[in-house]
């Protein structure tokens, strides 16, 4: 009887999904404890222990738990609030400012008040040392160890806690970096050290130095947090496997996380997309759009077979070039504030009321109208049944805020103003979905949308109308999708090496050795993580471009094509991906040969995943779950209508509801708009389909899903 727990630390709540073999998964939530997030983790574990039948003491319970998968945002928060470790950088003489210059970008071109972001390492702690490699990794000047010694001396004097090493062209030859690292390790044994050729041996100096500096800056923070967490768990008798969520959608052991702390920087929403796919698969789909609407942000990601990956991203305007899920985030959430700009246009966000003071209806001192206030006025949120009745909402406060800040300035009624806020918020979110679909060559109409986040299912019908997307799935665990995803995640380790060469005529023995080395590194980590050999897989990717292009395209190299050294088949895969992304390829154009820039390996260790059992078919009739009615705003008709309210807890597989209607459960409110109907699927998810498109859910309706 295995027990697994997924734990997702958020800004307001820490979410838990508890899965015990043979039982329905259970959702728990506790208030987060930002000063030491592991306290909330232990509080939640206590709640879970008390809930099992018969209830257990914390230690008895925790000692029986097999696996805990944990997502943490301590590194993210440390970066955003500038509370990382005091860091030093040793780099090549002449280029120490690349980190601060960020290639000379100013993101807001017309705004002369817009200032550069503070560098992670202050300039006097960025030391250029003699020693130079050429573009092929050949030594032009030997490393001057006296320069390194001088840097170390300064770092010690300045009480530097963490050191980054990043030299020009080290992707092609790590020797000089390693020599400098040996000296630093010897002289500063306590310091956290990141060597760029260990973290990210790939070309592009700015990306590498920025990623290395980020890892250095937050490494000691994560180390400290993991110590706290592991100590508390050990004290409680935990002897199972602890795994940490990464930005690439996979998990890793705490020891790997300590070395490559930057892998956790964008891990907050990374568990969601993989979980979303499970719910789409219940309808025979192998692709979906996963959206998650929280208090301050809205996230959208695309899943095609697996979640779409990107090779770089940004945090607080710092570049990070580690593979991660391609999740697009916009400032639109329940707390987004509505305001009127100087031209008289209604805008929503990006300012957010957050959780504190929160929307006006929270009665915590917030006076500005937020999306949640509009939802209260429009009848989507039940003031007496918010968070399952744990919190009551003040409708009058919402009305007053909307009246003062939106309705009066626009000359609208309060209801019209709230409807406007709702509509503009939905429009913003629809544009966010466009970012991950249309801009990457996919048509959003062809994807089911998985809707997560407490407030997501109130808006999803209108978002889907905007995108003309006919199908959405709201999982039962919609409000804690990331915690679900953590239990669905495999162990994933990404490796990259730069190898610049024409594809046709590449040196296959070198390529074979590079890839063999990366697989070896992956195997070593997976062994440490106790993954059996038959549970391991390796995927090869190349980053290629047409000669003289500026951007590479990353694509999967079919294993058999690589083994057969089939350059043509690999070129085909590149042309196809280029065509899909950009609408054309230069296949057959002899002036545009294909050039390899990077080769990548992802080592995957299969984790045991909980099975979600199918429910028993209960027929289409949903009348048993109807608990009342109330007026809500129906956007299609632009008016309030009295609609049926259903209790989500009583809805079963096959039950069918015609829109417009509301479905309420403890953690989620769902608005089925006038254009959609809803049927509960075999996993208990709410499948919302456009009226007239019964074909999308034919099997589910008949209980044959």
């Amino acid at each position: 009887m295995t027990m697994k727990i997924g734990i997702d630390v958020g800004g307001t709540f820490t979410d838990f999904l508890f899965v015990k073999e043979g039982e329905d998964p259970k959702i728990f939530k506790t208030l987060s404890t930002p000063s030491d997030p592991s306290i909330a983790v232990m509080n939640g574990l206590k709640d879970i222990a008390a809930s099992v039948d018969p209830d257990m003491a914390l230690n008895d319970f925790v000692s029986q738990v097999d696996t805990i998968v944990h997502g943490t945002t301590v590194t993210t928060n440390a970066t955003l609030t500038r509370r990382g470790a005091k860091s030093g950088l040793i780099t090549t003489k002449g280029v120490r400012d690349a980190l601060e210059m960020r290639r000379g970008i100013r993101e807001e071109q017309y705004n002369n008040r817009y200032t550069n972001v503070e560098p992670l390492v202050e300039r006097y702690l960025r030391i250029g040392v003699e020693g130079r490699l050429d573009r092929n990794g050949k030594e032009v000047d030997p490393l001057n160890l006296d320069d390194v010694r001088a840097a170390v001396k300064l770092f010690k004097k300045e009480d530097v806690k963490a050191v980054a090493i990043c030299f020009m062209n080290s992707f092609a030859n790590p020797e000089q970096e390693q020599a400098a690292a040996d000296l630093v390790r010897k002289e500063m044994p306590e310091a956290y050290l990141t060597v760029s050729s260990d973290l990210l041996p790939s070309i592009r100096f700015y990306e590498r130095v920025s990623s290395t500096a980020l890892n250095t800056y937050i490494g000691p923070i994560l180390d400290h947090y993991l110590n706290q967490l592991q100590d508390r768990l050990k004290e409680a008798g935990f002897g199972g496997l602890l795994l940490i969520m990464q930005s690439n959608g996979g998990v890793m052991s705490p020891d790997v996380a300590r070395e490559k702390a930057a892998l956790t920087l964008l891990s907050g929403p990374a568990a969601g997309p993989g979980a979303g796919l499970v719910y789409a698969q219940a309808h025979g789909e192998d692709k979906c759009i996963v959206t998650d609407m929280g208090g301050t942000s809205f996230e959208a990601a695309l899943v095609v077979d697996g979640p779409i990956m990107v090779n770089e991203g940004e945090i607080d305007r710092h570049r990070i070039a580690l593979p991660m899920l391609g999740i697009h985030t916009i400032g639109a959430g329940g707390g987004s504030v509505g305001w009127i700009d100087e031209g008289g246009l209604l805008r929503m966000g990006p300012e957010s009321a957050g959780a504190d003071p929160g929307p006006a209806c929270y009665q915590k001192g917030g006076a500005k109208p937020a999306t949640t206030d509009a939802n209260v006025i429009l009848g989507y949120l039940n003031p007496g049944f918010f968070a399952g009745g744990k919190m009551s909402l003040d409708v009058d406060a919402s009305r007053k805020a909307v009246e003062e800040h939106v309705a009066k300035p626009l000359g609208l009624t309060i209801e019209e103003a709230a409807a406007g806020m709702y509509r503009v918020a939905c429009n913003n979110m629809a544009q966010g979905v466009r970012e991950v679909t249309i801009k990457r060559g996919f048509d959003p109409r062809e994807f089911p949308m998985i809707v997560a986040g407490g407030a997501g299912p109130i808006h999803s019908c209108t978002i889907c109308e905007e995108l003309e997307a006919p199908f959405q799935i709201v999982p039962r665990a919609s409000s804690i999708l990331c915690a679900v995803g953590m239990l669905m995640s495999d162990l994933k380790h990404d490796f990259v090496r730069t190898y610049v060469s024409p594809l046709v005529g590449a040196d296959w023995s070198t390529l074979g050795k590079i890839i063999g080395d990366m697989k070896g590194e992956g195997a070593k980590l997976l062994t440490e993580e106790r993954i059996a050999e038959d549970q391991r897989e390796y995927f090869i990717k190349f980053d290629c471009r047409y000669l003289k292009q500026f951007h590479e395209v990353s694509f999967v190299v079919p294993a058999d094509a690589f083994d057969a050294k089939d350059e043509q088949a690999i070129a085909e895969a590149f042309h196809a991906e280029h065509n899909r992304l950009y609408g054309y390829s230069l296949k057959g154009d002899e002036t545009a040969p294909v050039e390899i820039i990077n080769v990548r390996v992802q080592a995957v260790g299969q984790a045991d995943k909980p099975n979600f059992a199918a429910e028993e078919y209960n027929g289409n009739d949903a009348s048993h779950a109807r608990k009342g009615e109330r007026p809500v705003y129906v956007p299609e008709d632009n008016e309030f209508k009295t609609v049926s309210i259903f209790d989500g807890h009583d809805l079963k597989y096959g039950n069918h509801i015609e829109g417009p209607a509301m479905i309420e459960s403890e953690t989620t409110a769902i608005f089925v708009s006038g254009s959609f109907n809803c049927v509960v699927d075999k996993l208990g998810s709410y499948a919302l389909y456009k009226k007239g498109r019964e074909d999308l859910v034919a099997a589910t309706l008949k209980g044959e899903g």
Partner: protein
Amino acid sequence: MSKVDPILLSVYARTFKSITDEMSMSVQMTTRSPILCEAKDFVTGLYDAEGNMLEQTENLPILAFSLAPVCKYIIEYYEGDFSPGDVIFHNDVFSLGNQNNDVAVFKPIFHEETLVGWAAVKGHQADIGGNVRGGYNPNATEVWQEALRIPPVKVYEGGKLKKDVWDLIFANIRLDIVSHDMRAQMGACTVGERRLQDVIKKYGLESYNAHKAALFEASRKMMEAELSQIPNGVYNGEGMIYFDGHNQGTEFTIRVEITVMDKSIKFDYSKTDAQTDGFVNGTFTSSASATILTLLQMVNPDIPHNEGMIKPMEIIIPEGTVLNASYPKATTFGNHLCPPNADAIIRALAPVIPDRVTAGWNNLLCSLTTGHDEEKGDDYVDIGFMGLKGGSGAMIGTDGYDHIGMIDASGGLLDQDYEMFEQTTPHLLTKHEFLEDSAGAGQWRGGLGVETEFVIGSEDTQLVTFGDGDFEAAFGLNGGEGSILNIIEMTYPDGTHVVPNNKDLIEGVPKGTVYHQIAGGGGGNGDPKKRDRELLKREVRNGIISEAMARDSYGL
């Protein structure tokens, strides 16, 4: 007339913006020339049936507002003779084009039978014919030595390719890549066309017409509110241009007279010096764009960029001046007259709106190296973006932005990555760092400039320079100090020291030559002695300001 719904208005505004953004992404991803896909020297726009701008995504500010005048010209030129599927090309600087290399694609958009708008993309092409590959010809005196002129011409009519016209154009352009990139621009116009059609299908033509008018009105009001904060009056300012590429020691003065009257502003350049003999001449559109972008940096940056925004502005640039050359003068350098034009405007308005203007920005001085990479067996071209980017001027309350580049790009143009630079050229980069003391001192200092040094790795290398800022440095304001001059110089292996003119072409630069460049910082603002002492000490420790300068200029 359909009633304006204040909520729908917001939806229209957001949707128009997302359309031009999507067109922009399409261009960036599908073009091959680095000046398009890397430097993003292009603009995408949507216009109504009369050519009024609904929205644009400009990437580089100098291109903002460079399409709308042409759109109106085209509508007039064809007297309304358009059908669905038409595609029109244009670059001609004597019919409101801004620069020869910037070739525009226009596509009319129809809803059922009615012309409802235009999608357009203008991008800087890698070649446009003329005497010199790439288009920068310092020796040119007439337009034909610079470029193939393309007055409005339909390359597709009713969806059918006019093969003869197409071939005529591309028979006069050196590089195949240009026809690929023009196809990419056409593709982006199709993206814009489809999405605007979808919008009108959804909300109806009447609603579209009513709401776009309301959007223009909203932007106009926002702009008027900003202008009404500038005291009424007439203000004069000057900016200097040094060297026309032909006659050593030449100087030209841009003179602007700005009249602010309640909610309107007029820029009159009538007293500006006459045009030059060479290619250092503006076109009306490039100069007006420079004027607009400089003003936009002085107002609320959130005003939607549409037709309404420019309604309260009037710009007079007489033909025959250095900012609006008469036919058939050479004009390729025209976009780079933005910095001195901005100087003139800033100097005029600094006394009346001191907290809205910056001190002077570093002017552009750029170089391009071309040659043969022996090891790779291939030719290379490199535009020295990283070396050219100096600092911006300080504002009261805000330091200048370090290493941002000239005002016409305002941080939109990025450095080459160092390691990619060494992969794509045979050069070895030895230095690219902030330059100590390069920023003008002030209570708020200018943005820092940079120093760049590399060893040239090919024999018989060609170096082209273009720019300015080596005679006059960025100026300070309100007691803030000016900055330092731009420098490009080379030391050959035999010790020969070469300092090119600021518009020059040097052949036969030998391998092993050390190339050295300084891009100056921006001007300072306010009395340096009042600069925050703690900040100053930190800057000294960080090697941004030397102890000597801290003592002499800042009084530390």
